[in-house]
């Protein structure tokens, strides 16, 4: 306990390392709140983007040409435009238009900035996921699908029970890369004042003038978050691994 | 240690090599005199390729010694460049550089490694390409040639360095039967000119024709050796007899 106290003393502002995030309770609290916000953004966006990806890949195989074109346009739009501009578009352009009258009679935004951030990130990553899952779905051999048809499966059953499990395994590496990028892309929410990690850190360093230390803490935090995600994906891949498949 | 022609040009003494815990060479001893052609035959996994690669320092050995023309190959301070100038090697997968033409492939090493004059090298390269019967193909890329043609370019490329010993690692194993003959003819011409050749091969007929001595390896040791006449007709060891009966 004595040692811990000395360590914390050592990290106080007047010493050469200005690590207020560890030494000062208030700042530490803020930093952890920002970290939690980043985690929330990441988890929600990952979740929704996966759903969008799976649905989109399913529609891509649909017989209706109009649907395929629609999904194709959706993916092309989100893949070839900057995510920051997409975010601004949702928050400033659509968000300003989409207002409802609040309780006090003044117009209020329908969706908060956190909400728009999740929507924008989910759509962006979701569009990329559609591509990834589609490639995975198409990598499932046609003969396997035909065998299922011959056994009497319906299209939905084939997709759910045979194609999807195989496609997910095939897509895992690319999917992992995409999800890691998603965690890094949550920093865009800074631009619309969502109090995530980067935003909070900027507040801290503008108050305490310890940019260098905060930067390093920030980078270590993100590397840590990414490492956790990679570990989770690795465990998921291990549980899904089929012996002798794809070697 | 200076080398004189009465000593063996390549000498292996009790060479041992392991890959991790698996021992691949368990005490190989053999000598090759200058101008000799020797063939090493044996079942897969017997260590033939490893043996030849050790002579060229592509793999290191755990025990024993290998000398090439007086150079200690297993010496950690060995100047590999001086070894590679003496020893030329041709591989099973030809390994031509796909982004260079045939002529460039043959010319590259003497210019960049031996730092010889470009005009001289080009003249010699063209002569070598003609010697392996590929004149007209100097400006072709390896991708445009057949397997046998690529292998002959690989031989010309190694010869351009003027080696004293040529090593052939199952050079016809990846070729169609029709193209095997053209490569073997090239090697035969080379041997007739007096080049010291060490071949690892499955081509028994060829071995019988050109070898001065045939070695049979099995599980990392030399089981039997001798001139082709006695070797193929009068094999002593039962393992050799079994192997030959399976192949011939």
């Amino acid at each position: 306990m004595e040692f811990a106290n000395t360590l914390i003393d050592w990290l106080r502002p007047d010493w050469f390392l200005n690590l207020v995030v560890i030494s000062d309770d208030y700042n530490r609290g803020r930093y952890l709140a920002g970290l939690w916000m980043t985690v929330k953004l990441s988890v929600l966006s990952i979740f929704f983007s996966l759903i969008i990806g799976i649905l989109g890949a399913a529609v891509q195989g649909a017989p209706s040409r109009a649907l395929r074109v629609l999904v194709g346009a959706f993916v092309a739009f989100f893949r070839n435009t900057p995510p920051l501009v997409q975010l601004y578009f949702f928050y400033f352009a659509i968000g300003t238009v989409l207002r409802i009258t609040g309780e006090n009679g003044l117009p209020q935004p329908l969706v908060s900035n956190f909400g728009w951030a999740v929507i924008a990130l989910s759509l962006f990553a979701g569009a990329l996921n559609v591509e990834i899952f589609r490639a995975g779905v198409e990598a499932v051999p046609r003969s396997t699908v035909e065998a299922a048809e011959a056994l009497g499966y319906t299209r939905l059953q084939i997709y759910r029970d045979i194609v999807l499990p195989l496609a997910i395994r095939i897509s895992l590496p690319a999917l992992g890369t995409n999800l890691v990028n998603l965690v890094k892309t949550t920093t865009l929410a800074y631009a619309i004042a969502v109090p995530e990690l980067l935003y909070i850190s900027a507040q801290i360093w503008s108050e305490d003038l310890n940019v260098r230390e905060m930067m390093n803490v920030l980078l270590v935090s993100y590397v840590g978050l990414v490492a956790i995600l990679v570990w989770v994906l690795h465990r998921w891949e291990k549980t899904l691994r089929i012996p002798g498949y794809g070697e | 240690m200076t080398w004189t022609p009465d000593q063996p040009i390549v000498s292996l003494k009790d060479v041992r090599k392991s890959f991790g815990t698996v021992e691949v060479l368990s005490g190989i001893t053999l000598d090759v005199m200058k101008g000799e052609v020797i063939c090493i035959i044996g079942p897969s996994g017997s260590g033939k390729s490893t043996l030849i690669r050790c002579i060229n320092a592509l793999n290191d050995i755990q025990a024993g010694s290998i000398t090439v023309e007086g150079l200690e190959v297993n010496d950690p301070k060995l100047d590999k460049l001086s070894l590679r100038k003496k020893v030329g090697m041709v591989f099973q997968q030809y390994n031509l550089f796909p982004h260079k033409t045939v002529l460039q492939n043959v010319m590259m090493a003497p210019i960049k490694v031996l730092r010889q004059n470009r005009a001289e090298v080009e003249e010699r390269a063209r002569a070598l390409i003609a010697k392996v019967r590929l004149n007209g193909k100097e400006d072709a890329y390896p991708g445009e040639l057949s397997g046998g043609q690529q292998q002959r370019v690989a031989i010309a490329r190694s010869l351009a360095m003027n080696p004293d010993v040529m090593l052939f690692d199952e050079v016809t194993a990846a070729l169609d039967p029709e193209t095997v003959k053209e490569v073997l003819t090239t090697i035969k011409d080379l041997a007739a000119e007096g080049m010291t050749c060490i071949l690892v091969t499955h081509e028994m007929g060829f071995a019988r024709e050109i070898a001065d001595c045939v070695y049979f390896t099995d599980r990392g040791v030399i089981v039997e050796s001798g001139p082709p006449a006695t070797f193929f007709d009068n094999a002593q060891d039962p393992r050799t007899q079994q192997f030959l009966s399976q192949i011939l």
Partner: protein
Amino acid sequence: MTMRPNAPVRGHMPVLLPMRIRADALPMADRMFNVWTAAALVLALAAVLIAPAFAQDAAPEKRSIIAILLEWTPTLAGGFGFNVLISILSMAIGTILGVGLGVLQVSPIRPIRSVAWLITQFFRNSPWLVLLFYCILLIPFQIEIFGTKIPFPGWIKAVIGLSLPVMAYMSEYMRGAILSIPTGQWESAESLGFSRGQIMTGIILPQTVKRVLPSWMNLYAVLTMATPLVSIIGVSDVMALTRAALSAEGRVDLLIPMYLYILSWFFIYCYPISAVTRLLERKYSVKL
């Protein structure tokens, strides 16, 4: 004792590897990028842009949306050109550094390999915006070398900031490409007496160019789409100019059309790059 670097362990999750598409899966991939989707997008864009023009306001002195967009186009085009300039410079710097770092990642000397790997992983896992902040805040505004002052305006710092992740990604691509060259190339070159440096520059690296090209082009598209980030750190790129224009005009009905306008510029610039990348992937995946 051979010079060839070790290939990665089998079964390890290749999170960091680029995605491989099977050759016969590609024909359907092109269905996504075809006339129909492009047409659908153009129609949607046009509809959104033209529709407000039809919703005429009561006050006649308000200019039409299209007129405003056209009026601002030269300024915004200058901003967009600035984005392109930043992307080209960052790509160039990042590529050169990345190729070097990639070669170091396969070095036979363990400390060099580890350090190179660490640097690559560090910049690969850092958010691009954080790296931009890092550069804008920590690079001095000018440095003195031998008495001459070299100024570092904001946009140069932004270029450096963006070139760091490019360097990291290129390093990974190069490492993968170098490791995919068959061992035989290393061995035969070694047998001919070439030194490691000669083998790398004369034989291995030229062969990696083809393999890396699709990923490289894709990286450029990603980089271009990251350039608006510099508006957050105070560089006057197209995004900063757009927001300035919008606040100057102060019209709510201008928001959606103008953002769509800018989005369409990026789309028109990046879509061909994606299409060519797809073509190249198909062409080279068959050979591999």
